[in-house]
């Protein structure tokens, strides 16, 4: 069950990205997981919820896009799903098929929440029991100018 390690690695990178962009909170995380990546989405989802606690990703919605394994035979050119476990041997041609997709383990995108929630959260959580919202807000003006460049993927 290495999904916890995977989740921790993803969260660490996303926290760094949020820091660079001056965001205190991450609302949505979208991962692309290939069906040949060796990672089980359900286990990752479970681990992610735990590992995200007390980070900028606490409560973030996790979207997982499963990427189908596909391969093509370099001899006959036939392209088809690999299936799981992958069938990477083209028997009629006696050749290894080239894997085109399915190994992805990627952070596709995140939605950063710039709503100044920390004040509200502080008020409604006067006891300070959770300690989740402690991050100091600092916005790098350079980051704001980058916003215009963010276009939806593909």
């Amino acid at each position, binding site marked *: *069950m*290495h999904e916890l*390690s*995977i989740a921790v*690695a*993803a969260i*660490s*990178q*996303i926290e760094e*990205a949020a820091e660079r*962009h001056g965001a205190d909170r991450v*609302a*949505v995380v979208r*991962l692309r997981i290939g069906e*040949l*990546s*060796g*990672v089980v989405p359900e286990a990752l989802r479970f681990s992610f919820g735990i590992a995200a606690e007390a980070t900028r990703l606490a409560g973030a919605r996790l979207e997982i896009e499963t990427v189908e394994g596909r*391969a093509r035979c370099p001899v006959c050119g036939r392209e088809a799903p690999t299936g*799981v*476990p*992958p*069938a*990477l*041997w083209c028997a009629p041609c006696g*050749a*290894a*098929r*080239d*894997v*085109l*997709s*399915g*190994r*992805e*383990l*990627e*952070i*596709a*995108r*995140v*939605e*950063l*929440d*710039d*709503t100044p929630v920390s004040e509200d959260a502080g008020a409604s959580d006067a006891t300070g029991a959770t300690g989740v919202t402690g991050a100091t807000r600092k916005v790098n003006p350079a980051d704001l100018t*980058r*916003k215009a*460049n*963010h*276009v*939806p*993927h*593909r």
Partner: protein
Amino acid sequence: MCRTVDLHQAVLAKNDERALALRAELAARGTTAVNLLSSPGSGKTALLELLLERCAAEGLPAAAVTADLATENDAERLARSGAPVRQILTDGLCHLEAGMLRRHLTEGGWLPEDTAVLWVENVGNLVCPASYDLGETLRVVLASVTEGEDKPLKYPTAFGLANAVVITKTDIAEAVEFDRDGFLRNLRQVNPDVPVLETSARTGRGTAELLEFVRRTRDGRCPVHRPALAAEHEPLLHHRHEDDDHPHGHAHPHPHGVPAA
């Protein structure tokens, strides 16, 4: 207000970067690293004992790192060969990571400068270690004849990313009715053309061939097998960027110009 940032980062980018750095470091000092992967009880340690003895006999400077969740039993067994051996206790973690390995190699200058072959006995587990590049030259996946011929299909990531596969305990193959042809057929489905070596730690069968295989790889006489499953793997790994300044390039498979070692 929400804004969307496209990251397109490999989740394991940090491990992969560390692995690349370690691979370069080891190559620069002339050390060939062999990552041994298998399920618990498939005979990694027994085989490694023989390999270390053979290295000593042939005058090939070798060292071994063995990873377990707990106990130093394996290190004690391996140290009998006289080779430098280091136990890594992962403390419950189910796999080795590149940074962890590097720390143990460099701590106190542990790994002798002249090490020709570094054997890395990974945690006995066919699932988790498969996702982590350790900067090895060769990833060797072991399966014993007692494990069943469908093992490669049950653990396609591990067997699919192997540069070589070793069948162990072949001395009892007949007794346990090992379906050798079935195993090889299943292996070919997930990793076509992967080199296969057959060994027995009890009789010593195949250990000379296995060491010779590592030596030939080391000398460049034998190219490292590039698994079909690894082909799409590499382009995504070795860079991280946000799309602020770059066009998207990930939808297209990259040319496979990167050698596996």
